[in-house]
């Protein structure tokens, strides 16, 4: 019994530590990213509107939280996000959508990649979907983690994969 209690306490402490570390890590990242962000409504909004339109077309009507931020941020200027095209902080938090998209990546992306990154990040925060593994079989999928590899894909690829994802939910 004593051994069981010791193990239980160890598990609880470890869990607290892990979550604590995660929060510290997130806080270390989120503040600089927030500080590096700026209003981007005009450019990103049409993509966001189409994401919700397409969800609706597939019979998916998630509640949109009040705390809803999708902005550009100079992610390259911060060491933790210097190689990140987009980052979301609302995954598994239904009260928050907080997404920052690397402005330099955005400018270098073609139209298809722009759709992919917005739908990818919103799928994290709105649909609580996680990244897929970097496997060939996942290439083309909305939740594939490397949008930069999608520079050869066309809008038709995006449309097919968007429908596959939303149909699967």
């Amino acid at each position, binding site marked *: 019994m004593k051994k069981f209690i010791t193990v239980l306490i160890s598990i609880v402490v470890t869990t607290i530590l892990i979550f604590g570390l995660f929060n510290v890590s997130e806080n270390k990242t989120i503040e600089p990213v927030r500080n590096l962000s700026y209003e981007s409504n005009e450019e990103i909004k049409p993509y966001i509107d*189409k994401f919700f*339109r397409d969800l609706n077309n597939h019979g998916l009507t998630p509640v949109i939280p009040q705390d809803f931020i999708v902005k550009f941020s100079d992610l390259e200027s911060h060491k933790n996000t210097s190689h990140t095209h987009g980052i979301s902080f609302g995954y598994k938090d239904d009260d928050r959508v907080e997404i920052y998209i690397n402005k330099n990546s955005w400018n270098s992306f073609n*139209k*298809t990649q722009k759709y992919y990154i917005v739908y990818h990040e919103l799928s994290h925060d709105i649909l609580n979907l996680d990244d897929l593994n970097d496997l060939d079989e996942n290439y083309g999928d909305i939740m594939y983690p490397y949008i930069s590899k999608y520079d050869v894909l*066309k809008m*038709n690829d995006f*449309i097919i994969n968007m*429908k596959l994802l939303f149909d699967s939910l």
Partner: protein
Amino acid sequence: MIYYRFILVFLFMTFNCIGQRVSDDHLKKISKELRKEFTGLVIDQSTGLRGRGVISFGRKLILQYDVPENWYPFDDLKQVLVRNLIDNGNEKMYINGEIDLGYYYYKNNKLIKSISIDWEEFDKLRFTLGEFIELTNHPKSNGLEIKLKRPLGWEVREGDGPHIVKKFVNEQKIYLMYVKEIGQFVSKDEVNSFFKNDSDVKEFILGMIGKNGDDFKVKNQKVVTIENYPFLYFSDNVAKERMGIEVKGVQHYWISFLEDQMIYFMGSSLSNEDYYNDFYKITNSIKLLNQY
């Protein structure tokens, strides 16, 4: 190309009232009159091109130029001249008058370049496509990445309706591009499937042109490929009253669903002549930049 404009304006004023074949003697008289204005005139200050003289020889009107030491003709000078004449709509007076053209260029009193254009060449090249009109960033293109060529001599106009992106207009002929959001993305396969369903297609066409099945027979309806993408082609007869007279014509449509937009290209003319070939050539120049 200042010198072309000068010559064209002058000749247009001279030939405007003719509109039919001029006699050789009349052409000689015109060349004499033109010579007075043309000789010694700086035609293009940037290149130093000067008018040297104008002569006529049979049915040919020859414009002579003095060029400076550092002037060299373009390799495609003839094409440039022909395209400019067509683009300004001035080829018609040479066709109507059955007048051939000659352009002679002299350097230090020595002929260094001559170009001949037979009036019949203009007739063959009358419908020639010009440069691409880029519509990708046009606000009415709704994000579609697209460009197409305008025909030389046709006026390019902004669309006057809410979804009409551009219009090419030439006399009674109009060619336009229309884009409208449809509220959902469609894939190429879905478009292909839709076009294979005859009853859906018929209903769609009837809805689009606002006719009912009784008074409309879809003509030449077929699925064609434009830039690797399926489009539905069909034509429709139109009739309009003008000054108490009924004028009939044909409208040609190439229509599809691309991304989340309905897009069509329509060529129409209110005349007894069907300009399908001209409209086909414009449509064939379309580049859908996200397809490759």
